[in-house]
């Protein structure tokens, strides 16, 4: 029976078993070929030590080793805790029971690890064991703050620090940290100047009385709690540093090279509940030297309910799911993926595969013992693909025709038909008009411009213009061209940082916004990168007044006719250094202005050929077909928001780029995959899965699609008027018969329905809100869309009444039109009975149709 209720996706019934933090699926590649789950306990076959060789340099140098055992089930497990360690030359080094080796004197030695009857060897060379390393404030002091968590974004590494004390996030700017500690002062976001009176946080005369130690040891009240034990190694290191005059140390590359990168082993961990794995962290300096950082970093588990991590880097699997461990060292951040596997499933079914999407999705499902749902029924597939490719449900006669067809290639053929339909052009123009923000806005942008911009999108979609070309045209738009109107949303050119942020978000899937005021607290983006990219938009200006604006960039990057008193400086200045910023790509490459170059175009060419571009594009298109991106939100790529299927994302991106950024080819590939064609009916193994595409997850229809669907089912087209209901005068009106997805600039048309159901105002990159709300419930009950259309003259009910349609006919046609399926016998019988019971046929038909268009089955794509 039809259940009438508000348009609600009841996600509440899903207990999200899998964590939001997701396993780097690349770990699948680390599994040995032939890996299998076995009932009998696996036997240890061989051992190896990691690293197999290493040189320790300098006094007090050390190296953590891991002992890895190869088992008969072809898995490798961490056996470090069970191993005994011996050194061939104890005069050169000593080893503790955890597998950490400390240098004593120069020489060579071999480390042997024994587990049972098996052993493994690693060679060690010790050099300069008597040479103290030159003191380095970044390494020796900031390193302490980093592993003690003092300079995290939630503490003193936050934008403004904590309680007047600011440290750079994870020690990315150690010179500034030194200044804040030694000289004092209160940090200000937009200037290098300090505010308030400067007061040092150290006491050179009485180092133990230094505020920085008093707070960390809780001798003085400290909101961050106890961070250092008095007398601990780190405590003494700080005391000695203060006692020595609080030097910065040599800052030259030779004496104190910076850490260029961190590496973690293993990068992806693959465990069962209860198993453990130690992490090995190695820092690589600018001079190429490697150093063990396993004990000099801070470990943070993403979801500790899935897996926890100790301060020494020991990961313990708790329950099936995916998570990650963030590893933070001075100025560096790296992540290890952790997957905790469910118990293996016996008799896991063979599932046929249509293309590489299925390979990637189904391999992962098998790993997690999730069985994909059955292939969708023809009716289910038909409705879904029509809505996803053409934005409209199929008409009843097409449902009958498709379901009746015995053609084994009918799905493939249907996809082709839809890809070449005019409705495809309508729908994807609507999608991109939404993303590209075609609107008139309350300020009243010239609708000629918004329509020209819309028409450019439509022409691009109709011609299946390569997506990189579309992006290039928009990012680098100049003149009076249609895409250049994007840069005049409020009749004036927006601030360059806004324009830059939007392009990067839409076309690269990254949000750099945080880095506008400070280095991104969680990501690699620095404030310098933000402003370097912004500088590409800094010379953009408009020629002429509001009705005649032509977009151009100042030739040579210098303002032309700068001969007016009080003129604004159009150079992009770094907000903190106040220095002019040279346009620079995210990879650091500078593209300075020359007499006649166009750096914004060069940036657009770089952006649209960068791997990020293809990844962001395929992820966005993917989300339109599955309701979520492989990275989700689709424009929020970051290390703490990894893709659910990184290998799939890479392969899709490669496919897209290799195809010439052909949107139709990409959509065809997705639509043809079995993954897309799975049923929305879940099975016991996948009913909780929302992120692995084991079954189709119902998606609420967007406002425009829902309105069009209601118009189709009721047989009463919507009239889109620019006029408010109580206004006088003729006003403007969209051509009769215009569908909501065909509106050129949706915001000028008064429509309570579209507003209630989430039409975005397009002020910023639209994020549609699909959550149900009370207004929707009220609108279903009393709104014009759900009520006035039902009995309108010329509508479907009017037709039934005119021709005297039987109850069976009515129910069948209504189900085909609304749900794209035949009613079941039970449904049909019950509804016919209800209709017959109503003395007023008209009322009965109205109530029936109202119930249908109010139902979830109708309001969702499933």
């Amino acid at each position, binding site marked *: 029976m039809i259940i009438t209720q508000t348009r609600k996706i009841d996600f509440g019934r899903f207990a999200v078993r899998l964590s939001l933090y997701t396993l780097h699926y690349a770990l699948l590649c680390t599994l040995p070929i032939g890996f299998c789950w076995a009932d009998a306990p696996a036997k240890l076959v061989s051992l190896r030590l990691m690293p197999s060789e290493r040189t320790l340099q300098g006094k007090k140098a050390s190296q953590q080793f891991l002992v890895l055992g190869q088992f008969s089930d072809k898995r490798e497990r961490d056996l470090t805790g069970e191993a005994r360690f011996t050194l061939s030359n104890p005069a050169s080094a000593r080893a503790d029971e955890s597998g950490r080796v400390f240098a004593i004197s120069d020489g060579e030695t071999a480390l042997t690890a024994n587990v049972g009857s098996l052993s493994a060897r690693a060679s060690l060379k010790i050099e300069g064991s008597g040479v103290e390393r030159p003191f380095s404030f970044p390494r020796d002091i900031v390193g302490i703050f980093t592993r003690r968590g003092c300079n995290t974004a939630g503490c003193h590494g936050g934008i403004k620090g904590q309680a007047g004390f600011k440290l750079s996030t994870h020690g990315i700017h150690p010179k500034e940290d030194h200044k804040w500690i030694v000289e004092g002062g209160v940090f200000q976001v937009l200037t290098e100047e300090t505010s308030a009176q400067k007061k040092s946080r150290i006491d050179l005369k009485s180092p133990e009385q230094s505020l920085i130690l008093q707070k960390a040891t809780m001798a003085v009240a400290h909101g961050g709690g106890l961070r250092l034990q008095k007398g601990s190694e780190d405590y003494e290191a700080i005391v000695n540093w203060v006692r020595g005059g609080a030097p910065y140390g040599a800052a030259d590359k030779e004496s104190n090279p910076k850490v260029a990168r961190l590496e973690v082993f293993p990068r992806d961990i693959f465990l069962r509940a209860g198993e453990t794995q130690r992490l090995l962290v190695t820092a690589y300096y600018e001079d190429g030297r490697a150093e063990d950082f396993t004990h000099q970093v801070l470990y943070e588990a993403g979801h500790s309910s899935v897996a926890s991590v100790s301060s020494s880097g020991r990961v313990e699997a708790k329950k099936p799911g995916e998570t990650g461990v963030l590893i933070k060292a001075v100025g560096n951040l790296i992540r290890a993926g952790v997957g905790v596997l469910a118990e293996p499933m016996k008799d896991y079914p063979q599932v046929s595969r249509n293309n590489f999407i299925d390979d990637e999705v189904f391999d992962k499902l098998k790993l997690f013992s999730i069985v994909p749902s059955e292939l969708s029924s023809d009716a289910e597939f038909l409705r879904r693909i029509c809505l996803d490719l053409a934005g409209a449900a199929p008409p009843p006669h*097409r449902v009958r025709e498709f379901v009746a067809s015995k053609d084994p290639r009918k799905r493939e053929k249907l996809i082709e038909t839809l890809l070449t339909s005019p409705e495809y052009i309508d729908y994807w123009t609507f999608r991109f008009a939404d993303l590209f923000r075609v609107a008139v806005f309350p300020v009243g942008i010239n*609708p000629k411009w918004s*329509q020209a911009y819309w028409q450019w999108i439509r022409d691009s979609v109709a011609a299946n213009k390569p997506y990189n070309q579309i992006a290039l045209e928009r990012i680098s738009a100049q003149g009076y061209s249609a895409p250049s109107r994007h840069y005049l949303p409020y009749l004036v050119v927006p601030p360059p940082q806004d324009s830059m942020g939007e392009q990067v978000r839409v076309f690269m899937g990254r949000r750099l916004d945080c880095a506008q005021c400070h280095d991104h607290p969680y990501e690699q983006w620095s404030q310098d990168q933000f402003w370097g990219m912004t500088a590409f938009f800094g010379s953009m200006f408009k*020629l002429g007044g509001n009705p005649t604006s032509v977009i151009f960039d100042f030739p040579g990057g210098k303002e032309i*006719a700068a001969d007016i008193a009080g*003129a604004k400086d159009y150079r992009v200045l770094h907000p903190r250094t106040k220095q002019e910023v040279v346009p620079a790509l995210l990879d650091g490459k500078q593209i300075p202005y020359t007499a006649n170059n166009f750096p914004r175009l060069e940036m657009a060419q770089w952006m649209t050929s960068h791997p990020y571009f293809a990844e962001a594009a395929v992820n966005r298109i993917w989300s339109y077909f599955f309701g979520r991106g492989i990275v989700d939100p689709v424009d929020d790529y970051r290390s703490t928001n990894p893709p659910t299927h990184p290998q799939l994302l890479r392969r899709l991106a490669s496919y897209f780029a290799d195809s010439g950024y052909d949107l139709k080819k990409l959509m065809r590939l997705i639509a043809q995959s079995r993954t897309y064609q799975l049923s929305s009916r879940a099975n016991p193994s996948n009913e909780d899965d929302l992120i692995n595409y084991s079954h189709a997850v119902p998606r609420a229809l967007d406002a425009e699609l829902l309105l069009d669907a209601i118009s189709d089912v009721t047989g009463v087209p919507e009239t889109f008027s620019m006029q408010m209901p109580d206004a006088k005068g003729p006003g403007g009106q969209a*051509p009769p018969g215009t569908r909501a997805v065909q509106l050129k600039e949706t915001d000028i048309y008064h429509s309570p329905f579209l507003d209630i159901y989430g039409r975005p105002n397009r002020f910023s990159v639209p994020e549609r809100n699909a959550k149900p709300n009370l207004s929707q419930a009220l609108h279903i009950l009393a709104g014009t869309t759900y009520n006035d259309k039902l009995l309108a003259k010329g509508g479907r009910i009017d037709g039934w009444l005119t021709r005297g349609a039987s109850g069976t006919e009515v129910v069948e046609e209504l189900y085909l039109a609304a749900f794209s399926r035949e009613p079941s016998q039970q449904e049909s019988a019950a509804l016919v009975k209800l209709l017959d019971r109503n003395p007023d046929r008209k009322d009965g038909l109205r109530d029936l149709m109202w119930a249908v268009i109010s139902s979830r089955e109708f309001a969702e794509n499933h």
Partner: protein
Amino acid sequence: MRMTFWMALIASSLWLAVRAAAPGEPELISVFPFGVQQGAGLKATIRGRSLEGASAVWFDCEHLSATISGVVNDASTSAPSKKKKSSSSAPVQLMSVDMKAASGSALGMHYLRVLTPRGVSNAIPFRIHAEPGIPEDAGRHNEPAAAQQISAFPVVINGKLPGGGELDYYSFEVQQGETLRFDALTAGSGLDPGLTLFEPTGSWFRPDRLTELAFNDEEVSYPGLPVNGRISYKFARNGRYLIRVNGFLGEGGSDYAYQLSVRRASTDYPDMDPMRPAHLPPPSADISWKERSWSRELKPDRLKALWSRAAPSLAGAIPEIAVVKVGEQPVSVSIPALLEGAIDRPAQVHRVKFAVKAGDRVAVEVETTRKTLPQFNPYLRIVSADGDEAFTNVHSTVNTCGDLILKQIHPKTTYSFPRDGEFILEIRDITHLYGDSAFVYRVMLRQQVPHAGEIHVAEEQINLIAGEVGIMSVETDQEEGFDGQIALTVEGLPEGVRATMGTELQPRVPPPYNPGKVERFRPESQKATFLFMTEREAPATSNPVEARIIAQPVMKGKAGGPILVKRILLTVVKPSPANLPVNHEALK
């Protein structure tokens, strides 16, 4: 003739049509149909106000005529276009006329006025076309299935979009390979027509679905340019197609008339711009003088033309200006020079070297001979030999709120060099992305010539009431340091009317927030007022009298030649009750 010139004229003519009438004076709003085939006639309806007692329709061409059938109040409730401003609260009326266009009538846009006891009305456009004209079907054809059939080309269909959201569909058959041109024309009624060409392909979803083949709202949406839609399309298949006319944003109204012209590309009919004015003054005429237009023609005799608007006797020998072709290779010229070139690829910069002496006062003028703003935006920059910017054709100002800088390119810039030296004139498009063989320019680099610039008279017609005084304002531009006087006279006044100069209180205008280097881009201007003293006994005019406004520059006591500024229509009407505001209640 160049398109840009038509556009400017059309723009000014549309402005003519929307100028408000004085209260009680006859005012025309629209005429439907607004065109007729050369050599044919039709019944038309003129919408307007205060048309009672109309005696004649007055055309700008002797080959056009009309007979008035009657005037009734318009019972429809549709308000006139919001774009139109009317100072009259009089009800809208409908005047029925039988129009005739003799075979000798010139093709293109004409103007008509109506004569009433209150004087002559404003002018509204009326088009004479070569193609046969047919009316829009009386029935609705706002759906594809009800499309009006077009059976022969070429044809002009006279249609109207009276209601909001109204669409007019027309269907036609074509052969494979045939190219048709469609124009949706309007004439200042407020309608902004759009055209969409469809093929009735049907779709998998809907058998009646149309597939859009082409769409055009107008060639370029830019202030001052026509809003007519145009599609030229080569058909790949035999078959039936549809063309749709609709108003931009779906507005409709009683004056929203259009002409849909459909013709083969290979037609024998003249391929002229449909909106071309039928009667153009010769380009050299004083009356067409444009000082700061992108489309005014810069010719080697430019200096002579400028001196003709000053006191030529002071000029001495006036040289012809040498024409220099400019390309990517820098060239050297001496002032004066007329530079011709094309920015034929994006980001191309043309460079011209020249030398000046301290105190040299130069003017740099630009003409865009083919593409113009907003597609081709010529940016001129004059830099010293060491690269320092001396001046540009970009005028920077601060908006009235003081928070935004506006930049505008100008077709003329003046500058006085403070020192001797070699300079380079750079010519480019202001964008980096655009440039093609149609980005053709003429740049004139010359000494400044103090002269009378454009002289503006707003009025097109003045209806004088015997015993009263009519007023006409004249605004004169003084260019390039012209510090003499400009004598103004009116010739050809009706009997009993005398023109005399008077003063008029000028409204106080707050100074702009920051006008920038306005002296480089704007002339000095002065305003004068003519008072038409009409004797009580002055006889009423049976037809409008064409008066001529003449200007004559005077410099250092030397008078220049007469300059015909404008022709306006004057009528004298008697102060009878018929000329007073009408009691419309009584007319009901």
